[in-house]
């Protein structure tokens, strides 16, 4: 299936949870926040939140800024 990840198309196997996506991105244990279709996915729900075709996922982190 195909999702939109940070504005770009991204291929994933069906039934992949958010935690699986972060593992593929080598972001496990990194300080990131995940938004799915404009709603926050709390860290405690990464393992149980399953992604679906067409989902819009944002993965963000902190960078330098004023």
């Amino acid at each position: 299936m195909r999702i939109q990840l940070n504005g770009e198309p991204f291929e994933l196997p069906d039934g992949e949870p958010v935690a699986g996506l972060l593992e593929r991105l080598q972001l496990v244990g990194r300080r990131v926040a995940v938004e799915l279709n404009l709603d926050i996915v709390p860290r405690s729900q990464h393992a149980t939140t399953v992604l679906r075709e067409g989902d819009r996922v944002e993965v963000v982190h902190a960078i330098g800024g004023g």
Partner: protein
Amino acid sequence: MSDVLRDKPFTLAGRTYGSRLLVGTGKYKDLDETRRAIEASGAEIVTVAVRRTNIGQNPGEPNLLDVIPPDRYTILPNTAGCFDAAEAVRTCRLARELLDGHSLVKLEVLADQKTLFPNVIETLRAAETLVADGFDVMVYTSDDPIIARQLADMGCIAVMPLAGLIGTGLGICNPYNLRIILEEAKVPVLVDAGVGTASDATIAMELGCDGVLMNSAIAHAGDPVMMGAAMQHAIIAGRLAYLAGRMPKKLYASASSPLDGLVR
């Protein structure tokens, strides 16, 4: 520095701070320079931006929060780069998740790329939503005293008027508006943006501001680490001068040495 102890504590969202200088983390050469400049500044509250993670690039890349650890600094996520209320609210919610439920945010909704002037209409909208959602909102705004009052009345925990446009270093462009804002302030007032060098920060504090937030003045200095230290002193000097109360200005001279006993 015993006089500093007579100062009332600087409290934001129930937490007390020793430093009245807040610093940003943008525009530095690298993370090491960021860390050293912030350490030299003595700041305890540090702003960060929230941005998309680069997918598939440098997974081992050092993270900003490794050099400014949240257990040592109060991280103040900002919404810089947002141009409407919806974007700003979304960014704050992501930041709260990123920082494990931390509710302190800097709200900044911009109107225009050239001036980076705040869009106060969208700022008011976003502030209302964020306050209702339980955020502790420190809000960047224009130096309009009426808007500052409205933002405080709607529950923002600090009002942060610009002293000059972001990144210009033009200093305190309109001290009179700041004075009006300060005169009726019900929440802490911090100058955010415009400071260019140490004396600007001192002037802001002498006016009675509760603190100053700056980024470019340190990051774009010739030696950011040294300027970080200079700003620490500037803030303390301005605060002490404000507490001490300056002498009245006079038109004519007044001798400092007594005239009695003069050798004639």
